[in-house]
């Protein structure tokens, strides 16, 4: 349903606005008469092209339709123009009553000249008739006159482009690349960094976190501490807690695991957002016995319920329990959950639904479970410093009252600052990169325009001789440059339109709010501004130089001085040096990022992952109440799957090897209890016996779990090497015993000690991604520590099997209501873990390559011109017996000198700027010698390649032809 609507819907806003803008350029009467009709036809034909050929074809149509209307506007304005002037001077075969164009072929359709002339003359001559004057206000008339003169200049420019299609194509393409790159990256910067969060008062919405004073490690809030913070009404106008939740949505379609958040009722007050339809949660719905209600996310609403507003009041079956839908949450409302490390992901996941957060009655005394994210709205007039002082005081008093939690602090941050986080540096580097690309592109175009103004010197001379003043010449040049920049910008927007989708595909989740990025009106405004700036710079500078007072007279006299050539050469050499300098800086930056990425991919993640699939399995408490039920189900599932010849092994763990699982504290037998601020912690990872083998984690010493490590046997634990190093330096860990207090609380009475014996040591796994530090970990046996919310790992017997399909059918054979989605291989997850570095490398590398290519083009242009200007000189030298090598040296020397100078400056500049990149590098020094030595070679190679053709031409100059040719 929604898909069809999308296919046949109106054209994207960008095209509609562009077309409407173009239609506005028609003369007023035409616009009023036919504007809506043409706009409608444009929409109809767009929808038609879209249904038949998809988005690409529709975009091609829209582009053609926009391009087609421009000459018609010019024609229409010309007819109006000639009508506005003396009617005797008009070309009678062109004018008509409506101001519409009539081309030569079809002009025969018009009535006789005499009758047409009388019709056209009517409004101007027949003063007695009631026909209103076409121009009521003199101001309007002046504006139109100005506009018409501009149209005249534009027509002139377009005509010169038609005569030089090659020049036109090269300049427009060059500018399109530069402007398109800036548009695309700016749209990302705007969506991620500049757009404010959709809150009522983003400057007052804060996140509140706890952190360990000794390590600075951030953590979520405990329910007890949250209750205290919520009570600080003089600092926080309102506060809300939130946390992750998931449920199985059972309905007409296949069961789906949906993810969302549990939020306080005050969540909506803090953020100042209202549901799209329906109402927010009420305070009484937070009570443990309150009504079961849910607010679903806009995306789920559209996907499963066709955006039906009637959803409010209906019930959803979540995990087998009916929940009344009371509202729909708009897209782009964050946060809905917080990670264990105290991060709020600004990504589109976990936006399926919200339920009221219900805290147990005794929650206000729980100061150990770090499970809640907390947000608050600062009270009016309270700044962020004041809020931090207040929570600091709270931490100090808590440390006195509850010594067991001493060593914990609070921190208040504006939520809008959280969002930019790690993405800011990379995006600013990218913005700088594309700005440099644009500079290089513009330099190329300037160089081309300079070359062309030489070629057009006689034309300019004629115009100057006919009395065109300096301003007229500048204006013409400006209009021409603006037309070039405008066309380049239009093509650039088309490039960016497709480029943004490619960029978004590169990093779906690692950059906050990336899903909201798109080319919208402010981005187009930016593009227009860039195009205007480029056009103005290109259009004004060269003619100002070319028409300096003295020059104009010389032009009028038709002078062709040698000094002009010398100056041109110097100017062009300067431009090539500048391009070489900028290109070298970008290429060095890209080189550093490539080396970073290579370093990271070389890091051993600690597990072997060829094709291993991770499948989240979440058994609803309602149907798998006892620990035995879940275990039995896992066992049956494992048996069913391993029976298939396609599957080598199956195992379960609370989290997959690239998941954070959770951190927990422990105590080692025979050691004194450490003070709270120095308590020992490690990543806690319940797994089944086959986990290590399935994931390919190496056993270093001792043994891994066996099928006998069940509930009836002594508790055992397997640690990793980092654990052994950190907590058993110089001791033998195997055979030692430890207590894990949270296990005693979860599965026992909280006081009876439960001892886990260390039986083995396994290799380190980089749970948080390749660039993150190795952390100590303890693995426990799932039969001894039962879990119903796990990830299943499935290793294929051979490559190329349809594992997801096999897994789905096996799961649904056992339990048709169990969702199987978000299934990914460990390879994919590992790739995602380095996606940010890949993004940096690919994008900066891509733009640096473009920069290098453009610089190569500039070098080619310079040498080609040098050869052209020196033809006579070379001819004389050849006639005097110069050898080819000498000629080659003469030509290449002229080009390579600016390249080498520019390149050297570029290396120095890169050395200065590479510090800005330091935050994006890993395992590579900002002044990495390899990169700094190798990239200049790349530039020299490019320069040699670019000079090859013109230099070869120079060596083949025939002295007779060269000298005769004057």
């Amino acid at each position, binding site marked *: 349903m929604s898909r069809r609507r999308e296919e046949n819907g109106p054209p994207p806003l960008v095209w509609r606005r562009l077309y409407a803008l173009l239609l506005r350029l028609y003369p007023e009467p035409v616009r009023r008469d*036919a504007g*809506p*009709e*043409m*706009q*409608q*036809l*444009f*929409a*109809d*034909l767009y929808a*038609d092209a879209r249904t038949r050929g998809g988005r690409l074809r529709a975009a091609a149509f829209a582009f*053609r*339709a926009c391009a*087609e*209307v421009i000459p*018609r506007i010019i024609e229409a304005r010309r007819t109006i123009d000639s009508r506005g002037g003396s009617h005797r001077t008009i070309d009678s075969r062109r004018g*008509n*009553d*409506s101001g*519409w*164009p*009539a081309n030569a*072929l*079809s002009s*025969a*359709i*018009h*009535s*006789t000249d005499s*009758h047409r002339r*009388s*019709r056209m003359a*009517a409004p101007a001559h*027949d003063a007695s*008739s009631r026909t209103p004057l076409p121009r009521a206000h003199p101001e309007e008339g002046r504006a139109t006159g100005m506009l018409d003169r501009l149209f005249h200049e534009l027509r002139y420019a377009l005509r010169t482009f038609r005569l030089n299609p090659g020049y036109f194509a090269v300049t427009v393409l060059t500018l399109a690349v530069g402007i398109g790159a800036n548009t695309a990256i700016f749209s990302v910067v705007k969506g991620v960094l500049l757009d404010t969060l959709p809150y009522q008062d983003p400057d007052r919405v804060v996140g509140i976190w706890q952190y360990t004073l000794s390590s600075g490690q951030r953590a979520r809030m405990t329910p007890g501490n949250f209750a205290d913070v919520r009570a600080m009404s003089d600092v926080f106008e309102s506060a809300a807690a939130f946390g992750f939740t998931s449920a199985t949505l059972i309905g007409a379609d296949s069961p789906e695991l949906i993810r969302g958040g549990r939020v306080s009722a005050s969540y909506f007050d803090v953020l100042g957002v209202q549901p799209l339809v329906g109402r927010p949660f009420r305070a009484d719905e937070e009570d443990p016995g309150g009504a079961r209600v849910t607010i679903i996310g806009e995306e789920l609403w559209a996907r499963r319920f066709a955006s039906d507003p009637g959803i409010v009041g209906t019930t959803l079956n979540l995990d087998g329990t009916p929940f009344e839908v009371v509202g729909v949450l708009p897209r782009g409302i964050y946060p809905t959950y917080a990670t264990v490390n105290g991060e709020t992901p600004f990504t589109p996941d976990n936006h399926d639904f919200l339920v009221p957060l219900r805290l147990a009655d005794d929650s206000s005394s729980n100061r150990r479970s770090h499970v809640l994210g907390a947000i608050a709205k600062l009270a009016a007039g309270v700044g962020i410093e004041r809020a931090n002082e207040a929570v600091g005081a709270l931490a100090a008093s808590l440390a006195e009252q509850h010594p067991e939690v001493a060593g914990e602090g609070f921190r208040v941050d504006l939520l809008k600052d959280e969002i930019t986080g790690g993405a800011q540096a990379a995006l600013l580097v990218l913005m700088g990169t594309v700005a440099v690309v644009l500079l290089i592109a513009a330099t190329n175009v300037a160089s081309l325009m300079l070359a062309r103004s030489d070629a057009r010197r006689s034309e300019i001379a004629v115009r100057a001789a006919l009395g065109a003043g300096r301003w007229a010449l500048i204006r013409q040049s400006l209009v021409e440059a603006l037309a070039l920049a405008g066309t380049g910008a239009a093509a650039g927007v088309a490039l960016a339109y497709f480029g943004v989708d490619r960029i978004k595909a590169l990093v779906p989740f690692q950059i906050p709010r990336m899903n909201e990025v798109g080319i919208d009106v402010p981005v187009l405004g930016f593009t227009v501004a860039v195009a205007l700036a480029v056009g103005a710079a290109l259009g004004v500078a060269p003619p100002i130089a070319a028409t300096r007072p003295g020059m104009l007279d010389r032009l009028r006299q038709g002078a062709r001085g040698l000094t002009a050539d010398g100056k041109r050469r110097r100017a062009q050499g300067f431009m090539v040096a500048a391009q070489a300098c900028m290109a070298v800086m970008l290429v060095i930056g890209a080189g550093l990022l490539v080396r970073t990425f290579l370093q990271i991919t070389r890091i051993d993640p600690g597990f072997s992952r060829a094709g291993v699939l991770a499948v989240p399995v979440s058994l609803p408490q309602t149907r798998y109440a006892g620990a035995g039920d879940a275990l039995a189900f896992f066992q049956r599932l494992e048996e069913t799957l391993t029976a298939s010849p396609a599957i080598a092994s199956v195992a379960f763990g609370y989290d997959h090897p690239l998941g954070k699982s959770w951190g927990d504290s422990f105590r080692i037998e025979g050691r004194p209890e450490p003070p709270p601020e120095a308590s020992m912690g490690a990543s806690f990872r319940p797994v089944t016996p086959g986990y290590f083998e399935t994931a390919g984690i190496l056993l270093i010493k001792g043994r891994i779990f066996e099928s006998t490590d069940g509930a009836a046997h002594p508790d055992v634990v397997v640690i990793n090497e980092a654990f052994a190093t950190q907590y058993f330096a110089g001791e033998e860990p195997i055979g030692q015993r430890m207590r894990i207090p949270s296990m005693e609380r979860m599965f026992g009475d909280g006081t009876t000690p439960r001892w886990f014996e260390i039986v083995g040591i396994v290799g380190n796994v980089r749970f948080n991604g390749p660039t993150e530090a190795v952390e100590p970990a303890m693995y426990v046996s799932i039969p001894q520590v039962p879990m119903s919310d796990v990830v299943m790992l499935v290793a294929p017997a051979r490559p190329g099997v349809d594992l997801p399909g096999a897994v789905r059918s096996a799961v649904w054979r056992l339990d048709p209501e169990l969702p199987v989605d978000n299934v990914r291989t460990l390879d994919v997850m590992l790739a995602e873990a380095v996606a940010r570095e890949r993004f940096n490398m690919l994008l900066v590398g891509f733009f640096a390559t473009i920069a290098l290519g453009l610089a190569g083009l500039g070098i080619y242009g310079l040498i080609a011109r040098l050869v052209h200007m020196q033809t006579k000189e070379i001819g004389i030298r050849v006639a005097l017996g110069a050898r080819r090598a000498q000629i080659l040296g003469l030509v290449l020397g002229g080009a390579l000198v600016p390249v080498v100078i520019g390149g050297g400056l570029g290396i120095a500049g890169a050395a200065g700027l590479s510090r800005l990149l330091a935050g994006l590098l890993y395992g590579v020094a900002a002044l990495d010698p390899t990169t700094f030595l190798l990239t200049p070679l790349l530039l020299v190679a490019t320069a040699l390649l670019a000079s090859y053709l013109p230099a070869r031409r120079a060596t083949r100059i025939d002295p007779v032809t060269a000298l005769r040719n004057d």
Partner: protein
Amino acid sequence: VKPPKPNVNDLLPMSAVEFAVLLVLADGDSHGYAIVKEIEARSDGQIRLLPGNLYAILQRLTDSRLIARTATAAGATGADKRRRNYRITPFGREVGAAEATRMKRMVEAAAASDLIEDATR
């Protein structure tokens, strides 16, 4: 001041596309989108008019009184109101017939010169 009715022969020959539009309207009233689709179908997809061109043609035909805009249906709103209908005028039929006759004569002349086989013979 109403200009005199133009002479049929002053309007000949018509351009191929204008004639095509006139032929579509000779089969019944139609609006811009339908005209574009019809011409596309009749030309096996060879001729796809773009909005600017189509309205320039419709305007010229209207100016020359070959076609006229019909009144918009009273209840029309939104897209339907913006899609205006055109109708061929009796004068338009006259000019269309004259153009067809002119073309027929040319076809006959071509056949007489053995450029093509004369289908009518």
